[in-house]
C-alpha cells in the first residue's frame, strides 16, 4: 500500500506475489517499478498482465522522450493513460487483471491514485489493494495526517504491513519500500519485519478450558 506526505510519496509491497494458485511460487517478484522520472507504479494481481502494462508504458515514455520538448509525463498523465487502458480492456470483456497504484511527484506537486481492473479510478492520500483495503485503510484513516515526517510514515506503513502479514494468508515477510521525491526515485532492498508470536495465551490456548481448542 501507499501513502502521501509532504513532498514524498511512499510505496510498500511484499515482493512475493508470484503465487501460483495457493503456492507461493516466486518469492522475489518486484511489483514496484519506476516509470519515467516522476512516477512509481505498483501492481497486484496477474503478473503477466502487469508486465504487459509495463511494455505499454515503456512505449509511452519512449514516445514522450522522443518529443524532446523538455516536458515529461507526470503521475497524473500516467494515471489517466492507465485508466483508459484498463477501462477499454474491460469494455471488450478482456480485462488486465490488476489493481494498480500510481504515485509520483512533479514540480513539487504530489499525487497518488489507484486504477482497478474494471477501470474504477480515484485519487486519495492513502490507497491499498486487495486485503489492504480491509486491513490497512482503517489504520490509515485513523492515523494518517498531512504533515507526517519520513520516519512516521515508514512506521505507519510498517504497522499496516505487519497486520497484513499476520492476517493475509498470501503474504510473506519480505517487503520493499519505495520513495519518490522531486529529486528522484529510490526503491529499497527487500527486508523483513519483526513479528511477535509470544503471547502467553498462544503458548497453551486451552489451559483452563480443557477439551476446547
Amino acid at each position, binding site marked *: 500500500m501507499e501513502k502521501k506526505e509532504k513532498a514524498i510519496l511512499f510505496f510498500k509491497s511484499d515482493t512475493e506475489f508470484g503465487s501460483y494458485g495457493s503456492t507461493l511460487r516466486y518469492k522475489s517478484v518486484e511489483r514496484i517499478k519506476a516509470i519515467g522520472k516522476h512516477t512509481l507504479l505498483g501492481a497486484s494481481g496477474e503478473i503477466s498482465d502487469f508486465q504487459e502494462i509495463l511494455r505499454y508504458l515503456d512505449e509511452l515514455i519512449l514516445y514522450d522522450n522522443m518529443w524532446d520538448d523538455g516536458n515529461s509525463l507526470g503521475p497524473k498523465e500516467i494515471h489517466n493513460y492507465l485508466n483508459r487502458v484498463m477501462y477499454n480492456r474491460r469494455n471488450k470483456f478482456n480485462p488486465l487483471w490488476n489493481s494498480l497504484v500510481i504515485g509520483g511527484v512533479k514540480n513539487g506537486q504530489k499525487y497518488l491514485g489507484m486504477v482497478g481492473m474494471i477501470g474504477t479510478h480515484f485519487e486519495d492520500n492513502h490507497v491499498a489493494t486487495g486485503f489492504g483495503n480491509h486491513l490497512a485503510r482503517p489504520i490509515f484513516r485513523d492515523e494518517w495526517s498531512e504533515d507526517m515526517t519520513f520516519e512516521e510514515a515508514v512506521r505507519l506503513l510498517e504497522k499496516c504491513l505487519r497486520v497484513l502479514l499476520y492476517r493475509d494468508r498470501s503474504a510473506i515477510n519480505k517487503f520493499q519500500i519505495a520513495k519518490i521525491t522531486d529529486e528522484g526515485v529510490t526503491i529499497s532492498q527487500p527486508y523483513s519485519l519483526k513479528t511477535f508470536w509470544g*503471547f502467553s495465551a*498462544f503458548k497453551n*490456548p486451552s489451559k483452563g*478450558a480443557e477439551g*476446547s481448542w
Partner: protein
Amino acid sequence: MLLKKGVQPPSFRKTGTTIVGLVFQDGVILGADTRATEGPIVADKNCEKIHYMAPNIYCCGAGTAADTEAVTDMVSSQLQLHRYATGRESRVITALTLLKSHLFSYQGYVSAALVLGGIDVTGPHLHTVYPHGSTDTLPFATMGSGSLAAMAMFESKYREGLTRDEGIKLVSEAICSGIFNDLGSGSNVDVCVITKGHAEYLRNHLLPNPRTYISSKGYSFVKGHTGVLSTKITPLKEKVEVVEGDAMEE
C-alpha cells in the same frame, strides 16, 4: 415461482456487525456496535448485541439476529438450571460446549457467530464460536462483517496485561474502526467489562454518530402544508341495530 413474478423474498434481519473481545489483566472486555440490518436497510439503530449468559459470562452475537438471540437465551437458561443443580458458579467452557454442540447439530443452518467471554474459578476466558460449531480460544477476537477493520486495530495495538481503561479504550477503538469503515456496522459502541465477582455492562458507552441538524424549535405541520387534491366524505351507515339487551339471567 414467486421469484419469477418479481416477488422479493423477505430478507433476514441480520446483524452485519462488528463484535470484539479481549482479555486484560483482571478479566475480559467485550464490545459491539449497535446496528441491525435487513439487506441494505438499517432495521434497528440501537440494538443490543451483548447478551447475558450468566452473572459472570456475556456473549456478543453476529449473524442472523433471531439465531443469536435464541441460541444465547437457550444456553443462558440451561446454565441457570445447571447452577441450581450444582450449586456452583457457571464456567465459560460449559457455555462454550453447550453452544458448540447445538450449532454443530444444526450443521451451520443456525447462523450465529459468537464471541463468548467470562471469568470463572479457572480464570478469564475468551472464545469465538462459528456457525458450524467450531471454536477458538484467543486473547483477542473479532467477528462479523467489520471484523477485519477491528482486527487491524487489535493486531497493531494489543499487548498483554492491559489495564481496565486501556482495554476499554482499545475495544472502543476497534468497534469505532468497524463502525466507520464497514457498511454493515454503525451507530453506537456497547462495552461490557467482566471481572471477578462483578460484570459491568456499559450500554452506549460511546455515541460517535449523533443526530446533527435537529431543528431546536421542533417540527410543526400547519394546516395547509399538504395540498388537498380531492375530498370524498362517506358517512358510516349503520348496518346493525344495537339493542340494549336485558341482563343475562343466571
